[in-house]
């Protein structure tokens, strides 16, 4: 395509790629912003887990018993066993008889519950060199070892969080690739946006709310884009960096896999960590003693800390070893200062050396995105940055429609109408779907089998309904007016936010006076307050939209009168 100037080409890229992929980016930014408090949303959604964060409990006295109760996941067994197993070598091992090979436990400074998992070996593997594990996971109350029921969906960390990087479309990981492409074109849109808006500093302070609607929307689009420009850039970039090696450009896991494997074997030999099982059964040494030794060594390095991740390899074998990683709550970079122990003798096998410069930059970028650090003010800045991204994209949609709807109304084109309906769905519809899911979570009884699946169904159904509503009400846009669905769905957001808070109160007894004053529990209070703040913002938006609607209606009436008068005069 030929452009008269680079700026014209950049403007084309910014407009059209921003529009096409903006719908995906809106989902990434909104649910990414919610993911900053995913654990807190989990507490809101699963009242049984509303207690204070706990340190990693005793492995010897509590965790070992829980690990032994974990079963291989039934769905994964059905899906992966035929692929992993070599039928000509021997019979397929029944699911509950698969031998455990690996255990892990993970917690953060925000987790009252403890996530645990096991990897089970597949006897007679088709590819003996491969990682032939069927997995099983559980979440427990670390004070008692009792499991949180599986049908309770962790809405924050298992639904909103993966939505922002995979759209929860898991067929052939298609969601990951859509988000990856959108993330790349977000970088393109940011660079082209900076290129076409040369007066960046001035735009930081420019918002002319009394000018025309189109002007105000463009000012808002520029301002929200510029204010959080470094945030938008590093989030898109670091998001791509996190997945690049696995999904987006798996050079070293496909084409260079032979070299990768050869290097890994050399590294494993240098590290002194057994790569394979010895095949000789052996009892485990005390893991609690290893944890104590790891903590002593971290303290000696002047970085005393708690255990964040613990992994046991080759369980029950003479080659068993235990890797203990430090929780990264006091730093940005995602480093675990791992210490590895012989699982049978309890001796230290190795301490991870400092990373190279390139690896350290990678650790820092990943940590910047995943924010495992304990810094509440910074976490809120992340939320604000994410929401500014949403505002930037939403005003981009609105500007696209405002700029073209008069022209499309005259030519009879449906372009603005369609774009506007999609914009309503991704801006207000998405928020409605998220709150509706939370309300469903509080209304559906805790013991209901498949509760989590029903909540997911509510989410998708409500979102689909919001699209149908936006399409149904979009005729106004074809006449160069505003789609009433914007106002109607915003009213619904204002109502649903309050309903969700009341539903939480009625179903759990945790009202705001209790969670803020009498028995403080900020995870739940924060979600309730955010819902109410959302309602308030929606209410203010409705007021503004009603005023704009009135102005439009008056203008229309006076134009009609003028037209009637002119016709009578003629």
């Amino acid at each position: 395509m030929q452009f008269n100037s680079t700026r014209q080409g950049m403007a084309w890229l910014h407009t059209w790629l921003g529009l096409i992929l903006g719908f995906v980016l809106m989902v990434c930014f909104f649910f990414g912003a919610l993911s900053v408090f995913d654990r807190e949303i989990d507490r809101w959604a699963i009242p049984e887990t509303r207690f204070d964060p706990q340190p990693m409990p005793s492995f010897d006295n509590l965790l070992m018993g829980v690990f032994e109760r974990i079963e291989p996941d039934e769905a994964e067994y059905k899906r992966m066993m035929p692929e992993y197993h070599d039928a000509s070598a021997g019979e397929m091992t029944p699911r509950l008889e698969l031998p455990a090979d690996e255990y892990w436990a993970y917690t953060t400074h925000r987790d009252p519950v403890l996530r645990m998992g096991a990897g089970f070996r597949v006897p007679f593997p088709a590819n003996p060199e491969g990682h032939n594990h069927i997995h099983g996971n559980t979440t427990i109350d670390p004070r008692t070892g009792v499991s949180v029921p599986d049908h309770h969906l962790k809405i924050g960390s298992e639904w909103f969080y993966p939505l922002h990087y995979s759209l929860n479309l898991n067929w052939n990981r298609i969601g990951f690739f859509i988000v990856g492409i959108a993330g790349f074109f977000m970088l393109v849109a940011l660079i082209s946006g900076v290129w076409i808006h040369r007066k960046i500093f001035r735009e930081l302070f420019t918002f002319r709310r009394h000018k025309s609607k189109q002007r105000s929307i463009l000012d808002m689009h520029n301002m929200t884009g510029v204010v959080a420009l470094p945030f938008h850039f590093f989030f898109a970039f670091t998001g791509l960096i996190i997945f690049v090696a696995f999904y987006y450009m798996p050079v070293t896991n496909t084409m260079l896999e032979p070299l990768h494997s050869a290097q890994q074997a050399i590294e494993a030999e240098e590290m002194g960590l057994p790569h394979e099982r010895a095949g000789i059964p052996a009892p485990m040494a005390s893991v609690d003693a290893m944890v104590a030794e790891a903590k002593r060594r971290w303290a000696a390095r002047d970085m005393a800390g708690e255990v964040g991740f613990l992994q046991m390899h080759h369980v029950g074998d003479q080659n068993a070893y235990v890797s203990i990683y430090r929780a990264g709550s006091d730093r940005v970079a995602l480093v675990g200062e791992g210490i590895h122990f012989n699982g049978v003798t309890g001796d230290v096998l190795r301490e991870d050396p400092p990373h190279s410069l390139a690896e350290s930059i990678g650790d820092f970028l990943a940590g910047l995105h995943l924010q495992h650090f304990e810094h509440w003010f910074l976490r809120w800045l992340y939320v604000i940055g994410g929401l500014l991204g949403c505002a930037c994209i939403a005003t981009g949609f609105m500007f696209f429609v405002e700029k073209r709807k008069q022209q499309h109304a005259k030519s009879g084109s449906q372009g603005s109408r369609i774009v506007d309906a999609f914009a309503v769905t991704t801006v207000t519809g998405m928020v409605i779907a998220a709150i509706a899911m939370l309300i469903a979570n509080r209304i559906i009884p805790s013991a209901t089998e498949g509760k989590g699946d029903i909540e997911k169904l509510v989410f998708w159904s409500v979102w689909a309904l919001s699209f149908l509503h936006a399409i149904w009400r979009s005729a106004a846009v074809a006449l160069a007016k505003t789609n009433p669905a914007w106002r109607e769905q915003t009213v619904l957001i204002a109502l649903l936010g309050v309903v969700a808070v009341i539903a939480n109160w009625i179903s759990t007894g945790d009202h705001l006076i209790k969670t803020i004053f009498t028995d403080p529990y900020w995870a739940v209070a924060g979600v309730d307050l955010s819902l109410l703040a959302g309602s308030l913002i929606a209410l203010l938006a409705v007021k503004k939209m009603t005023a704009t609607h009135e102005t439009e209606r008056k203008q229309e009436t006076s134009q009609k009168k003028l037209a009637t008068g002119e016709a009578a005069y003629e």
Partner: protein
Amino acid sequence: MSTLLSFTRQSLGPVVTAFLGGYLFTWGFVALTVTSTVTLGWGFHTAEHTAFLLAFPVFLLVFFWLFLSRKTLLTHAVAYGGGVLMTAASVWLQSMLLAQGA
């Protein structure tokens, strides 16, 4: 419908070819960076991290270059050809390294 088809062909076509050209070039760049730095004695994971940190800046540069260039045929030939050449060179370097017992 014809407007949509024409938009797709005339406008999205150049975006797609620039994206694919940029991707292929970056794939070759990453592969060659990893294998050449490992040949020079770098650790595999350091080489891998370095290559992936540079991947998206390179991808973006090539994408913009291909999309905005007036000499479309030449730039695309350089990007696609360069990607294939770098990929081939990295495969050759890998076989050399494996033969040396890397």
